[in-house]
């Protein structure tokens, strides 16, 4: 018998959690609410009740919703991670988690680079990843960018490696982006490295990560083309390990020099849906393409629910669904603050 992670219990819980996600009718009511306050009240009747109540003590309005959503998402994540503690599944979740670590490290570095106050940096951190509050606070307390990296190295946190590697370049160019690229790249490489095996779980995560790389690369290519950046330079920002787009294809896309041309290259790939968009006269706005790509990614993530019920697939599906839900709620709430008409609001949402 193959020894596998005890997914039955975990996945049953996750499925239970999934059934607590809001259904479309709740979304409809949220959309129809006239202002942020009534959205808060309505959310008090949903699974977000606890966090909304807690947040409403300290904050009000959009801030209350955002804090509650962030907290709820972190909680959901921590909960799932708690079930898988010590299991091999933990590895997969950590890949997903490290996204926040990367974001947090970047925020701290950016803040240190322009000497923002510690309190302000702390406000922008989302301690959902492996780096806990203590580590983050200690990082913020360091005097400069290099000291932050040194601290990471001292405490044996792996992100110090890519950062240290590029310190020299950073100091020469005085450009923080150097370090950011290093850590972004490291994230993807690390994620791919962790799922080299050929088990179902490994291949599943690998598929998700490499799809994400594809999406990121397409976005990068489009941005490069729009800003007319030289092919040689642009090439440096591509990430290896995409699912269906190799670096040659990407370079060819950049070479075309036009958004339409680049997108035409995608016709034989799973991302052909972009070419339909190009015909609709919305060319030029990268965010329009980006939205479609993200929709694709989210749909792909959520569709994992129909994968092997005794695998990491369920957790992935749930996390994406939750992410989607939280984003949608945030969009609704944000649009209410600016009185965006309902029709346009719907356009912004990602329904899956």
């Amino acid at each position, binding site marked *: 018998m193959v020894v596998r992670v005890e997914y039955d219990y975990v996945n049953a819980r996750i499925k239970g959690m999934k059934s607590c996600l809001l259904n479309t009718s709740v979304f409809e*009511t949220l959309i*129809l*609410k*006239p202002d942020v306050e009534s959205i808060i009240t309505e959310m*008090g009747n949903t699974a977000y009740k606890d966090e909304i*109540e*807690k947040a*409403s*003590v300290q904050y009000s309005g959009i801030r209350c919703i955002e804090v509650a959503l962030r907290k709820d998402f972190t909680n959901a994540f921590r909960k799932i991670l708690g079930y898988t503690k010590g299991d091999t599944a933990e590895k997969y979740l950590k890949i997903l988690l490290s996204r926040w670590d990367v974001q947090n490290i970047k925020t701290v570095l950016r803040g240190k680079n322009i000497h923002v106050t510690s309190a302000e940096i702390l406000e922008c951190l989302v301690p959902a990843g492996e780096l806990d*509050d*203590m580590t983050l*606070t*200690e990082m913020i307390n*360091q005097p*400069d960018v*290099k*000291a932050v*990296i*040194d*601290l990471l*190295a*001292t*405490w044996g946190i792996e992100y*110090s*490696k890519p950062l*240290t*590697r590029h*310190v*020299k370049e950073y*100091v*020469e160019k005085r450009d923080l982006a150097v370090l950011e690229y290093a850590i972004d790249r490291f994230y993807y490489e690390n994620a791919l490295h962790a799922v080299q095996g050929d088990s179902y779980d490994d291949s599943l995560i690998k598929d998700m990560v490499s799809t994400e790389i594809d999406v990121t690369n397409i976005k990068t290519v489009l941005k490069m083309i729009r800003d007319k950046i030289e092919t040689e330079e642009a090439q440096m920002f591509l990430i290896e390990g995409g699912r269906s787009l190799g670096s040659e294809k990407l370079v060819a896309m950049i070479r075309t020099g036009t958004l339409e041309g680049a997108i035409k290259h995608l016709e034989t790939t799973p991302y052909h849906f972009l070419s339909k968009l190009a015909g609709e006269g919305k060319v030029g706005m990268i965010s329009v393409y980006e939205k479609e790509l993200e929709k694709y990614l989210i749909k792909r993530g959520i569709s994992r629910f129909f994968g092997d019920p005794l695998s990491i697939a369920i957790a992935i599906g749930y996390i994406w669904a939750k992410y989607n839900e939280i984003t949608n709620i945030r969009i609704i709430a944000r649009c209410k603050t600016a009185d965006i008409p309902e029709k346009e609001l719907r356009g912004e949402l990602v329904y899956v």
Partner: protein
Amino acid sequence: MLQKMKKVQVIGPKKDLQHVVDVLYHSGTVHLEDVSKTILPGDTLLRRMDTEKLGDIANILVKIGGIFLALPKIKDDPLKQAQICDTLLKKSHQELVAEANRVIEELESTTKNFAINKSNLEFDLNRLAKTEKIVERIRPLESQIPVLEGFEITFLIVQREFRDALEHLRNALIEITRNQFEMQSEPGDEETLISIIIFNRKYSEHVHSYLFAQNINEVRMPQEFEGKPFSQVLQLIEERRKKDFEEMAATDEQLLKLSTERYQELAVLKKVLEDRKEEESVYAKFGQTEYTFVILGWVPKKYLQRTKEALKDTFGNRIIVNELLESPDKKDEPPTFYDNPAIIKPFEFLMQMVSPPKYREIDPSPLIALFFPIFFGLMVGDIAYGAIILVFALIMKKKYKTELWLQNLMNILVISSIPSIFFGWFFGEFFGNFGEKMGWIHPITFMGVTWNRIDALVPLLMLAIAIGVFHVFLGLFLGIINALAKNSKKHAIEKAGMIIVITGLLLVIAGTAKLIPAILVQPGIVMIIVALPLIIYGGGFFGAFEIMSTVGNILSYARIMAIGMASVVLALVANQLGGSMEVALVGFLIAALLHILNIILAMFSPFLHSFRLHMVEFNSKFFEGGGKIYKPFCKGKEGG
């Protein structure tokens, strides 16, 4: 029977609201609906009732919850709590809120400070542990270098891939410090090297600014330990840790003290406020216009007149009660109101455990009340066991009067033990074959079979299957009625087809097995052929697979016989083992033990399987469920 419900709308002047709510509360017939859900966007006339009161109670509750979280838990003291509860309940809303705010003011900042203090200490301990680990790792290097006055020691971590950076560093140091420095390197772990450099303090700035731009990491220590020798640092860490622990213990102690003083009060306050919030939340369901209020709800048809009169008596014509027409869409599903005689009530509880029926469905609970005890009795089938279960259930009922769910379960056991005793007489069982051996009772001979469960294996199996056929057919028949009530002809046809196909199958099987005249085989085949298209029309091709699962369901009733058998065999074993013992007392003890075990099993297993036969085999034929329970607005919210 499920009661017919009427949707009503109560409209009246706002000043009477409080009073109307009181009247409705006392009449206890209205299942309230949330008016705000029916308010259309942009409707400026009708608004949700303001519930500012609710807002501050919710806030207070959150704060009290926070205080509660910080305090260590202490055992509830019911006597004291009841006392506090009495005084609290006498207070008006304003007084209660004021009281709560006073308590919060007294405790919140203290508990918050304690909590922050505690988390800070944990933080610090965590940091100390991390620092200690690093110090331990690089300490060996320190001893290799002499400590000199006016010199600075810096530790470096170097990735192995940048090993040559160390060479550059050495050259740079030669230049900066004019060769007045010391440098040592040692492997740290697989990927890193650890180096130590010591140089005159006057070059400090220079050296650090050089290091800043290199692919080398300096070891960063918490500021308070910076520049101290490691032995001292370790000592400091130890001291700090001790201090932290002491402080933590002190904090805990203080919290405990606070808890002993205030816990009971807080617990009661929380409960009272929660109740108050629940009561207040009712108001959130009402709608209002400038001068009037609107209450929406469901009233059972038979109580409608009573409710109307109650309102009319108090308010005359000031209050209008409108009966609304039922809208056919699903959103407007009326609540399900079981109104069964007391003997069926416990079985409603079983239904609710899974899913209450919808308003338009047939309520299965009376049928469960009929069949459940029969199945249970058939499986237990022992006079003594039945009697013991009866006594046990009665005792439990008496002992735990407040546990509603236990009361329900025990009621079911009481009801079910009666058929158990009957079937015990029928099978001639009293502690298995003990009664028979003693010559007290004998199995009854009925329809040419002596119903001794060990010998009459095949007749029992037949009986079980026959019950299965009957039960499943009953289910299918109810399914047809339900489908017609919901206007879904397809389903009705499918179920009818299923009845015919199964009948046909039975004829064929029984005919070939020569249990019935073989002439009936052909009509059976004809029935199958005729009814198959009906099923496929009603349920698609997967409907055809349903035939197999229905047959499986019928066979599943064999468990009635099998579990009964298991019970008998265990009883037999008990008696035999007990009887074979040399010493009578030992034999008696062993037999008693096994019988007790068997009785426990007999309470559990037949219960579960009887339940299962209803939920899986029977209900799946007609039951949809997912209704909401009628909860009238009255005292005792848990009533359900």
